[in-house]
């Protein structure tokens, strides 16, 4: 799991040209031949994919297709599940993230995650954002920490709404605000990649629109990967979409192409609502 230059079989993408889907210059993460097992059950089967820095990548697919499982391999979140076993090669900037010497805490700071249900700590808004930078030693002083908190809240589009009550509990915010707080918390440790697992599924349409706008704003600053059940959302926020089915990566392509002219029959059946 260490040969970064070995370009094995490209992902099952079907670009119209021979150009790679992800510009090598913007390549952030690569996965090659990844398998994941939960006990005896194979959840991910030989998935290879490139994640670019310059865009938002969406993972779509029916429940149980493995898209969340695969997302969680990208920052070794599956390590927390005792029966989960991952093989294959996943690299972040050419560095093998499953290398025994990899500091997992550090990895998860570089590859942050936002979950389906907003999960702020039962602490103040300020503390929710300050926690990460503090334990990672990113701030040398209180004023520096204040700056990081403010900047992160601004980037997450939440600052204006909470600037006068930073000491209030994070859990007292509305669902949409809590989710943006969680994004601010992820941003605060200055990650390179942000993984979002159904970040809007518990939110109303207005809060969803705010998160989508935020994703749009964050594009380019971070490599963003979002898992969503909502195909319209994938179409709205992403530039590339990967369709997973039964643990396989069926198709990976430009979002505009995949939703207007999918190349695989299974993709077409799924996105047009003919699945199953």
């Amino acid at each position: 799991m260490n040969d970064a230059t070995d370009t094995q079989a490209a992902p099952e993408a079907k670009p119209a040209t021979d150009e790679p889907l992800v510009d090598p210059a913007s390549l952030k993460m690569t996965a090659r031949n990844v398998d994941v097992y939960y006990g005896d059950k194979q959840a991910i089967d030989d998935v290879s994919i490139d994640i670019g820095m310059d865009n938002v990548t969406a993972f779509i697919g029916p429940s149980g297709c493995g898209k969340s499982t695969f997302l969680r391999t990208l920052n070794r979140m599956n390590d927390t599940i005792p029966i989960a076993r991952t093989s294959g090669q996943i690299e972040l900037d050419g560095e093998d993230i499953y290398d025994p010497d990899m500091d997992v805490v550090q990895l998860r700071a570089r590859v942050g995650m936002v979950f389906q249900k907003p999960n702020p700590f039962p602490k103040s808004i300020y503390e929710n954002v300050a926690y990460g930078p503090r334990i990672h030693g990113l701030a040398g002083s209180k004023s520096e920490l204040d700056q990081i908190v403010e900047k992160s809240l601004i980037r997450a589009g939440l600052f204006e709404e909470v600037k006068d009550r930073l000491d209030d509990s994070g859990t007292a915010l509305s669902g949409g605000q809590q989710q943006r707080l969680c994004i601010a918390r992820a941003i605060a440790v200055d990650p390179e990649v942000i993984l979002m697992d159904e970040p809007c599924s518990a939110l109303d349409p207005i809060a969803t629109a705010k998160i989508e706008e935020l994703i749009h704003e964050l594009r380019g600053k971070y490599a963003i990967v979002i898992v969503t059940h909502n195909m319209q959302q994938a179409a709205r926020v992403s530039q590339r979409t990967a369709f997973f089915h039964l643990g396989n990566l069926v198709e990976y392509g430009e979002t505009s192409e995949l939703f207007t002219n999918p190349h695989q029959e299974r993709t077409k059946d799924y996105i047009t609502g003919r699945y199953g």
Partner: protein
Amino acid sequence: MPRSSEHTVKAFDDDIGELRALVSEMGGLAETAIGDAIHALTRHDLETANRILDEDVRIDELEAEVERLAVRLIALRAPLADDLREAVAAIKIATVLERIGDYAKNIAKRVPIFDHRVDIEPLSILPAMAQIVQEMVHNVLDAFAARDAEMARMVIERDSAVDDFYDSLFRALLTYMMENSHNITQSTHLLFIAKNLERVGDHATNIAEMVYFAATGEYLEDRTAGETHMADIEELEE
């Protein structure tokens, strides 16, 4: 392109079926109108000519209906992939069919100009030309109904025969006008009619391109590259 299965939401299939039925109905009316118009012209049948003018209203209504239904489908069902392409194609095809209806109407309006005494020889070529464009319209709608890209492509290939007809009619009418200046008015009307038919052929070709795209998601390469028909030249000047 064969469908793998029905939509999980059955009402979606119903909506698409309704949209397709409307387009087919429109196509049937437009196709008949073209044939009838030429028939009325050659037999000086004023009654049929008037009926065509009346029926064009129905074609216009159907166009509005297709548009309403397609917009509703897009808004409420958020179609994707081939469903989306089909909804967009339906709107575009309806617009083109409405134009074809207008050409039939134009031809019908000229019927009173030609009475029984006139015997312009090029008039006898028009039914054969009309036959081809009518078949093109008919086949391209069959292709739409069957989502058959290959059939659509074959329709496009027939357009050059229509252009050839137009070219030869153009020359014949020009000769006719030069021979006798009394022929100019009627020859000019015939030329317009021939041009209308030629445009119907072009529109059938446009529909074929839309059907091809709806069925495959790919655009057909430009068919006219390198060809210079009289018909094409005049379009540039239009």
